[in-house]
């Protein structure tokens, strides 16, 4: 066993490609996502149609405009001109305040603010709408501290935990997930496939070493490397983007470890199917990495997907891990709130290990 570790680490440190994937990609990704997404949603051009023109509506408009997120592009008097403004892409959002806004708020405790969004970029739109809703909510609290609800259109719950809507908060869980998946599943499957390709696997199987020892020996170094990689991402999120970890760090690391083991099991399974490094790489990339990026809810909200894809996303392990990390890091929840997701990932782990063992046996026949 010790032998394996020494050999595996020697190979990892000698292979620049591996090192780049292990440590270079996470760092670049964090920076890229961080800066690219961070600056995107400032000074969003909007239009406002105030049908009420009373004190409350003016206050609300003032609050919206004075936030750094929005720039008032047009102050509309009627519904004319809305279409044109949208079509030209001049504005991304129109906020319509209904008539008798203040009166309704006072008497009926109920008023409607309509948000009309340019949804040609759905991501952007959902972010903008949640910005707006956040401002509406806080306005609501200002005028009515007792919280006797003014129902809003498009309520967005997530931002309660992320009041500034900092995109780092959204992508760090995603990046950790993807990186762990990439490093663990892809690197193990490639490194096992390499042994097959070079013919060294045969020699190992002829030797007195047990198959389980071979697998463990191959996998263990990657557990350590993936773990270090995860810590690097967390450190960068913390130092560069000032993202706090609200919840329990130990719990977070333990959950990460479980996810790593799951990904490794998946990697082993891939390697039982793939006979060459290239097949292993392609399988990991297309059968695993892309779906897990696209369907985990990390970039595209699962709620917006077609129903079929929503079902597919249920069987994407990353989806559950993203939920877990968000719960711990952003909401500061304890294990009680994520035991279900943890159990699901544990289930995946057992499933993939079982599948690999079965495959491995068949190969020997």
């Amino acid at each position, binding site marked *: 066993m010790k032998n394996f570790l020494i050999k595996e680490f*020697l190979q990892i440190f000698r292979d620049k490609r591996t090192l780049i994937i292990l440590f270079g990609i996470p760092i670049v990704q964090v920076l890229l996502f961080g800066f690219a997404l961070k600056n995107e949603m400032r000074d969003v051009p909007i239009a406002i149609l105030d049908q009420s023109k009373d004190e409350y509506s003016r206050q609300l408009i003032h609050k919206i405009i004075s936030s750094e997120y929005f720039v008032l592009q047009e102050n509309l008097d009627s519904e004319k001109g809305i279409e044109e403004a949208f079509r030209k892409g001049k504005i991304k959002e129109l906020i319509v305040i209904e008539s008798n806004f203040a009166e309704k708020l006072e008497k009926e405790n109920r008023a409607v603010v309509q948000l009309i969004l340019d949804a040609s970029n759905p991501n952007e739109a959902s972010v903008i709408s949640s910005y707006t809703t956040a401002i509406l909510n806080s306005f609501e609290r200002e005028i009515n501290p007792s919280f006797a609800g003014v129902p809003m259109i498009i309520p967005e719950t997530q931002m309660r935990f992320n009041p500034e809507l900092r995109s780092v908060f959204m992508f760090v869980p995603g990046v950790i997930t993807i990186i762990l998946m990439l490093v663990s599943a892809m690197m193990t499957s490639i490194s096992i496939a390499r042994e097959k390709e070079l013919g060294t696997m045969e020699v190992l199987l002829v030797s*007195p070493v047990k198959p389980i020892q071979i697998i463990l020996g191959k996998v263990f170094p990657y557990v350590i490397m993936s773990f270090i990689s995860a810590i690097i991402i967390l450190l960068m999120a913390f130092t560069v983007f000032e993202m706090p970890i609200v919840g329990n760090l130990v719990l977070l690391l333990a959950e990460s470890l479980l996810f790593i083991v799951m990904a490794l099991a998946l990697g082993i399974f891939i390697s039982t199917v793939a006979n060459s490094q290239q097949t292993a790489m392609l399988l990991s990339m297309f059968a695993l990495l892309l779906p897990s990026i696209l369907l985990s809810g990390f970039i595209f909200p699962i709620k917006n997907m077609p129903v079929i894809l929503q079902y597919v996303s249920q069987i994407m392990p990353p989806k559950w891990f993203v939920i877990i990390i968000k719960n711990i890091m952003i909401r500061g929840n304890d294990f009680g709130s994520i035991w279900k997701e943890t159990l699901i990932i544990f289930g995946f782990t057992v499933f993939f290990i079982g599948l690999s063992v079965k495959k491995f046996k068949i190969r020997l026949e």
Partner: protein
Amino acid sequence: MVGNKEHTKAVIVKDLVKKFGDFFANDHLSFEVDRGEIFGFLGANGAGKTTAIKILCGLSHPTSGEVTVAGYDIYKQRDLIKQNIGYMSQKFSLYDDLSIAENIRFYGGIYGLSRKQIKEKTIEYIEKLGLQAFRKSLVKELPLGFKQKLAFSVAIVHNPAIVFLDEPTGGVDPITRRQFWELIYKEAAEGKTIFVTTHYMDEAEYCDRVSIMVDGRIEALDGPKQLKEQFGAKTMEEVFIKLARG
């Protein structure tokens, strides 16, 4: 080089059958290999050589038949067999990105050699194979011939009773092949049994005995000289062609 002290034959195969679906890859093979013998296992591609050698090494299960390797039963004593055999494939099976010493250390470690033994083996191999100039280099920087000899030496690092060589000279030039066979002779002279598959017919001449497989069956088994007489041929190549044409 322990093996089962009782055994007189290195390999005993009786009625070995390996079927893939309806296809007989090994069709009732029976043969024996003596201790210390260089046994050539010949046949065209697809004749079933590799299937048979995989079964003997424990990489594959037979469909039926009795097989004993180094005196141990292949069904019940697989672990003991593994301790007593070495295996080298056409791919040479070394780690390209490790140095010579690291390869020896790894494979030696797998077979449970002590640190001291590994050190001795490393010094011995570097000297014996003339690898002094490559002491520090990675295996991928070695010329093919050296790589091949090193692979063979690594395959016998634990001093096994039997060595299985699956086309060990594939893609290597004639001079290097000759040097390689000298290495094989040396080991056989020390009492190791060598079980070698090849499709170079000139190499068949180097073997003590040769079996020729055609379509999953052994069609001939004898010393090269006897086979040539029996088939009225000048070279093993002719013997082989006569057999293969039926």
